[in-house]
């Protein structure tokens, strides 16, 4: 890695503003879409622009990613990335992951609140006896919630079927990406490609099984976002995790393409390392999910 004494400061860049516009279009489009599909007030047909705006937003967002990361890659190939700048990138990624953790933490908070507070209260525990007697007399405190206070019934997920297999898959993948990293450090390009490929494959397996799992929940168990707080927490947690896995797989695929292009040196491979950190994070989240959503 080049020892440029100066900290590289790009002069100006179009990509950020492109990104902001894209983000705005996406958000505005999404809001309008939801808004139009579930119009609460009468006579709201004039939201035809919603879908186009939304997808344009996504498209531009993708464009921005390519453009932006492209620039960064070119800079690093030009050797503009000093050790200090590299550290900035790493710290940035780590703090980003911290924020992601807090996002999941909030949903876990909701899960624990439901399990330890609201559901017991609705069944009369913790000084909320009247709540039970007067408002929800025939509600029983069970977890998973087979019958909501409102009377929606559903069945619970099983831990030791697909979920467990998925756990094994993800844990393994966490190992394989580490192997890939070691290979990269030792400059074993073949090992790198092999293990990275395996990890991607495992990621895809996970997603496939998750999809099967969902259809099973939906079809056989009658479990949906609508089936009370159990369904809500289950789908929101696994769903957001799933979307993060998808993102991770995409990132790793891009890494693969770059590897094939011959990018990355044993010393200089921030992007690859960031991806692997992200993958580990996704993996750890899953372990919590498996423990608290499926198992106990």
């Amino acid at each position, binding site marked *: 890695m080049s020892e440029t004494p100066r900290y590289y400061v790009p002069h100006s860049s179009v990509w950020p503003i492109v990104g902001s516009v894209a983000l705005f279009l996406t958000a505005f489009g999404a809001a309008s879409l939801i808004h139009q599909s579930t119009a609460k*007030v*009468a006579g709201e047909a004039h939201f035809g622009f919603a879908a186009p705006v939304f997808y344009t937003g996504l498209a531009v967002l993708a464009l921005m990613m390519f453009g932006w990361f492209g620039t960064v890659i070119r800079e690093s190939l030009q050797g503009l990335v000093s050790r200090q700048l590299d550290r900035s990138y790493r710290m940035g990624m780590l703090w980003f992951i911290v924020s992601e953790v807090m996002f999941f933490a909030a949903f876990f908070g909701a899960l624990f609140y439901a399990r330890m507070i609201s559901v017991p*209260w*609705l069944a009369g525990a913790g*000084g*909320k006896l*009247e*709540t039970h007697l*007067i*408002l*929800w007399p025939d509600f029983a405190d069970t977890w998973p919630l087979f019958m909501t*206070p409102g009377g929606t019934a559903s069945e619970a997920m099983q831990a030791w079927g697909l979920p467990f297999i998925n756990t094994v898959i993800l844990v393994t993948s966490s190992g394989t990406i580490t192997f890939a990293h070691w290979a990269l450090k030792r400059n074993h390009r073949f090992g790198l490609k092999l293990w990275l490929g395996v990890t991607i494959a495992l990621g895809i397996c996970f997603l496939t099984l998750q999809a099967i799992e969902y259809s099973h929940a939906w079809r056989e168990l009658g479990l949906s976002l609508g089936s009370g707080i159990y369904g809500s927490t289950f789908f929101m947690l696994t769903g957001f995790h799933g979307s993060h896995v998808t993102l991770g797989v995409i990132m790793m695929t891009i890494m693969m393409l770059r590897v094939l292009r011959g990018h990355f040196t044993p010393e200089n491979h921030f992007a690859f390392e960031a991806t692997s950190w992200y993958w580990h994070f996704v993996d750890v989240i899953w372990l919590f999910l498996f423990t608290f959503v499926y198992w106990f």
Partner: protein
Amino acid sequence: MRIAKLHALGVSIVTSAWSSQACAVAWDLREGVTDMSRRIQALHHMSFTVCVIVGIVVFGAMFYSIFAHRRSRRQEPAHFHENSRLEAIWTLIPFLILVGMAIPATSALMEIEDNSDADLTVLITASQWKWHYQYVEAGFGYYSHIATPRGQIDNKERKGEHYLLEADQPLVLPTDKKVRFLTTARDVIHSWWVPDFGVKQDAVPGYINEAWTRVDKPGVYRGQCAELCGKDHAFMPIVVEVRRAADFDRWLAGQRQARALASQAAIAARNKQWTMAELLPLGEQVYLKHCATCHQADGVGQQGKYPALAGSSIVTGPIESHLNRVMNGKADTEMQAWAPQLSDVDLAAVITYERNSWGNDTGVVVQPLTVYSAR
């Protein structure tokens, strides 16, 4: 509590001094009419006094320094910038003060949270924008709405003494009895608050919270909804009429009879054939009291928020859907189910009124019996 007493005195002097002028202005937290409200006021005086004292010390030092350590008086600044002992002291002293404040607060709170062995239980159900009081033991209840005329709110009439703090039917309670309140809500979160009792409890839909009070002075006490609950949050007063125990029991007995008679009268009224001429004026009253706040007195509603009734397809359309909408409401909107809230006659009257006002000339007369069978 000595300081508190002194302070209270000071406050009351200031207060009386001010109120001697035309307008009576309260500068202090209400003393109230319950043991707890007084303890809370004392707590307030105590914490306030502590803050004043600390303030005097801190700001005193600050202003002395501002005065005495100005450039014009001290050319050369000192250079000290640390003093472990001093810093330890001003970490410790505030901590001790806080402990001193926490103790009475804790004991008061523990008493507040003790809802056991009450003599009387009232289930308070809030909904947009009214209260329902259910006497659990006696087994009857009623709604309580704001009684301030629209005209006063719109600055068309002179405002009365209890502007916005007057209800058509107050909650009636006995003195010297431990009354337990169960609060809940139908739609959004409201909060039942009577300052003079020192009681504020949120009414959360789907849950029931508990609070209690024991009033020692008969009288009329007024409060307001204390949680933003939508459009008419400001117009959701609470009026409590506290009577001596014997008085209260008489009232309770009277209520039972009255209700018995009323229900008979209701049956009679329901079975009677009503004419348009009879229904319209009654309907107008009901409409103005319950419906006008959203749909407006002239039935034009509110752009995008509340549909207009003038020329509305439901109001001018088949009677069934009109009945259904009024009686069962529209889920998840301010349009609530009125069947449980209004009598057959009132419903018939208001629906007839809607179908024959503001250019809606269906000429239809809805009979209470029709409403009854639609229940």
